[in-house]
Every structure is written in structure tokens, then in C-alpha cells.
């Protein structure tokens, strides 16, 4: 008991409800399961879904890392990390390899994950068909029938119009050959890391009150066509700080004359490379 709250903020009955839903989610990879999302002491859009999932899985011996667009030091990451340090008393870290639970907003760390780690994604829109089919009931029926032609048509229209699929983030995937799934708004660059990941991946949407999961070693295929295969793209530059040519880059404006710098979005990966002597 910390400061008048239950361990990790949520009451035990709420945790039980989320835990039961998580177990079903693991058994049905990619299928969205409704849960009784609670009011959290921060607004929707700040990761209330992810926080509730983290609160349900977190134990005293866990080491928590929180990233926001890859960075450990942005407002969202800092406040969520402090929230759990305060309400659960857990150890926190910024080092990917030391973390047992990683709550993330819209990135997957560059450092490969390992067995035993749990990724918790913050999801704004869990329904991949939402922009194509406004009726939630109809979208649920399409999932039930595995009727995903509408999404293939959307990708096809992109190809005819632009010559390629023009989705750069939240690129739809098929989980375990069955469910169309939103990977949350991670860049399409990160999609291949979802496939056969050794880590357990949990997805929580607070406003929409849905959760879903990918067990470790699950096949996750980004939708594509035989003659237009999925390609993970990144900016062609190298990181201006660590020289990495394989990481996902953010473009930052560095002065009032429009000078720009490309840097790793994953701050832990970038710092680790700089410590190892790499430079931009």
C-alpha cells in the first residue's frame, strides 16, 4: 500500500477484470476484447489504456521502462514512469535490456527484445477498420468473418494513385493469419519487429476500452500484394549524434534558419551507441 492507493493504483477487482481479458487476448492473437476501462488520473490520449494494462501486470520485482516516440525523457514518458514509481514503488530504467516491462507510445525499441519482456502499447484507435467502416458493429462482424477485402482495396487504391502503399504509420497487420490488427501508430519501419518477437506484446486502448495481444513467436504479416511487397522505410540519412544507419530517425529543427538534424528516435539506443564511441 503506497500513499493510500492500492499497489499500482488500480483496485484488485479491476485488475482481475483486466487480467482475465488479457489471458483471452493472448489466446486469440490480434482479437480486440472490450474491458471496463477506468478513469485514470490523466486524460485520454496520454496512455490510459497502456497504464491500466501495466498496472494489471506489474509486480514489485519488475523493472519498468516507459518510452514516448522512442524517447525516455519526454513529458508522457517521464510522468508515467513517475506514476508507477510512486504508486507501485517499482524500479525504473531507461535501458531497454534491463527492463522487464516496457510501456511504449508509438515505437518499438531498436535493441532486440528478449524472452520474458512484456511490451505494453498505448493505442488510440484499436479498430484497424475504423476509417473504412464507421459502424463498430459492422466492423466486429467483418472481424468475425475475417472479411478484410475493404482494407485490401484501400491498399490497392493507394498503389493505383501513388504507385505504393501510402501508409507510413499504424500500418495494418494480420495476426496469426487470422485477425486484422492495428499495431498502434508505430512507424511502418517497426512492423517487422512485431513478427516472431520473443517478447509478449500487449495493446491497451483507454478511450475505446479495448485490449488485444500478440503472444511471443507469433506470425504477424503486414498487409501487401505479391507485386507490391511491404517495405519498411526510413529517412535515408544517418543519425547526427551516433551515426546509426539502421535506426528510425526523427527530423528536428535546430535553429531559426531552418537547419535540420536527423537523430535516432530511440534515445536509449542512441545514447548507448554514443557511449560506445560512435559519433555523427
Amino acid at each position, binding site marked *: 500500500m503506497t500513499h493510500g492507493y*492500492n*499497489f499500482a493504483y488500480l483496485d*484488485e*477487482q479491476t*485488475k*482481475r*477484470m483486466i*487480467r*482475465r*481479458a*488479457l*489471458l*483471452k*487476448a*493472448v*489466446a*486469440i*492473437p490480434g*482479437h480486440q*476484447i472490450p474491458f471496463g476501462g477506468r478513469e485514470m488520473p490523466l486524460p485520454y490520449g496520454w496512455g490510459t489504456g497502456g497504464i491500466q494494462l501495466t498496472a*494489471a*501486470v*506489474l*509486480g*514489485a520485482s519488475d523493472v519498468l521502462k516507459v518510452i514516448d516516440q522512442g524517447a525516455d525523457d519526454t513529458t508522457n514518458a517521464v510522468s508515467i514512469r513517475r506514476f508507477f514509481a510512486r504508486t507501485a514503488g517499482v524500479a525504473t530504467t531507461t535501458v531497454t535490456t534491463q527492463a522487464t516491462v516496457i510501456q511504449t507510445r508509438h515505437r518499438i525499441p531498436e535493441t532486440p527484445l528478449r524472452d520474458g519482456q512484456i511490451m505494453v502499447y498505448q493505442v488510440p484507435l484499436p479498430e484497424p477498420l475504423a476509417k473504412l467502416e464507421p459502424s463498430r458493429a459492422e466492423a*466486429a*462482424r467483418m*472481424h*468475425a*468473418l475475417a472479411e478484410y477485402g475493404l482494407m485490401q482495396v484501400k491498399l490497392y487504391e493507394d498503389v493505383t494513385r501513388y504507385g505504393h502503399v501510402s501508409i507510413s504509420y499504424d500500418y495494418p497487420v494480420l495476426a*496469426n493469419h*487470422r*485477425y486484422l490488427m492495428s499495431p498502434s501508430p508505430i512507424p511502418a519501419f517497426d512492423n517487422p519487429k512485431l513478427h*516472431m518477437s*520473443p517478447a*509478449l506484446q500487449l495493446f491497451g486502448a483507454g478511450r475505446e476500452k479495448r485490449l488485444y495481444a*500478440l*503472444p*511471443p*513467436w*507469433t*506470425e504477424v504479416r503486414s498487409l501487401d500484394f505479391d507485386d507490391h511487397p511491404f517495405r519498411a522505410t526510413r529517412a535515408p540519412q544517418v543519425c547526427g549524434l551516433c551515426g546509426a544507419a539502421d535506426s528510425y530517425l526523427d527530423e528536428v529543427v535546430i535553429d531559426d534558419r531552418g537547419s535540420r538534424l536527423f537523430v535516432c528516435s530511440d534515445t536509449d539506443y542512441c545514447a548507448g551507441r554514443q557511449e560506445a564511441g560512435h559519433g555523427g
Partner: protein
Amino acid sequence: MSLDLPGFADPVADAQATFRSVLDALAHPGRIAAAGTALAAPPSLHPATAAVLLTLADGDTPLWLPPAFAAARDWLAFHCGVPFVATPAAAAFALADDLPAFDQFGSGSDVAPEDSTTLILQVAALGTGAAWRLSGPGLRTPETLAVTGLPDDFAARWASNHALYPRGIDLLLCCGRTLAALPRSVSVQEG
């Protein structure tokens, strides 16, 4: 009188640890995890079974309890507050010592396959006995789980459950202070 037995010594931490064992077991089918390590279980329940129910069952989860578990009924009512149901199809959790027919349990609907029964089966041994070859999500390569206490025709019976995917039941195998899990997504061969 089973009511004299306490539940978890530390309800918050013990429930969390048990949940992580079940989560780990379901995410890695066939992996044997510890549960109920320090728990005194009521008669007819293995400590792992008792720990799983203390962790996951409450007033929202109807439980199907065959007569063989009558001695645990009061303990479950008191510590979990579960309602007991007579029809297996209406149960969120079901307990058994011998593998019951799967088709009597709820297998969910096409729209909501999660509305299905989770069967908790108590077996004589985990890690020794007849070997079953598992493959599917959670397994990089097929793995073998040895169980004493599953019927010889288990692979065929599981296949009929797996064929319903994404509907179907999930199976937790409990033995003593250990458990393993077979989510509906996994396929089982004799091996």
C-alpha cells in the same frame, strides 16, 4: 471445514505473481510455471488450482464445479465470491479432475470468441507421462509437454476444439504447485 483455511497471505502480491505465471504459461504453451507456492489449498483442490481461482475468479465469473469438488465449495464462495452454475456452457471457469467433453462448455461466438469457458484440469503430473507435441503462437519451434492424466485420445479431442478457432475453450493444467496452459490457438499432436 475448508473455511478455516486462509486465502493468499499477501492478496495483492500473490495474485499478481500467480497472474504472471498463468500469463507466462499461456504465452508459452507447454511451459511449466509455479503457482500457489505457499498456499494451503482446501480439500480436492491442488494449490495451483486454488491460487488461479483466487487470482482470477470473483463475482463476475460463474464457476462450474462438479460434485467431486464439493469440499472446496465453501472456501471458493468465501474467498472468491464466485457464483456457482449448474450448466457448464454458462461458466467462465470450470474445474475437473478427468477431462470432460469440450462441447458442453461455452466456446464463445464468432463476434466475441472471448466469451468462452476456461477449463482448469487437475492432472496427476506435469513434466512426466505421455508426451504431447505443441505448435502455434507462443512457440518458436514445436515443443513437447509431458502430462500424466490426459486421456489417450486427447489430441483428437483437442483438435475438435482447435478447429473452432478463434472460438474454443482454453485449458489450464494444474498439478500440485505448478501449472501449464494450452490456449485454443495451439495445435496438439501425439509425440
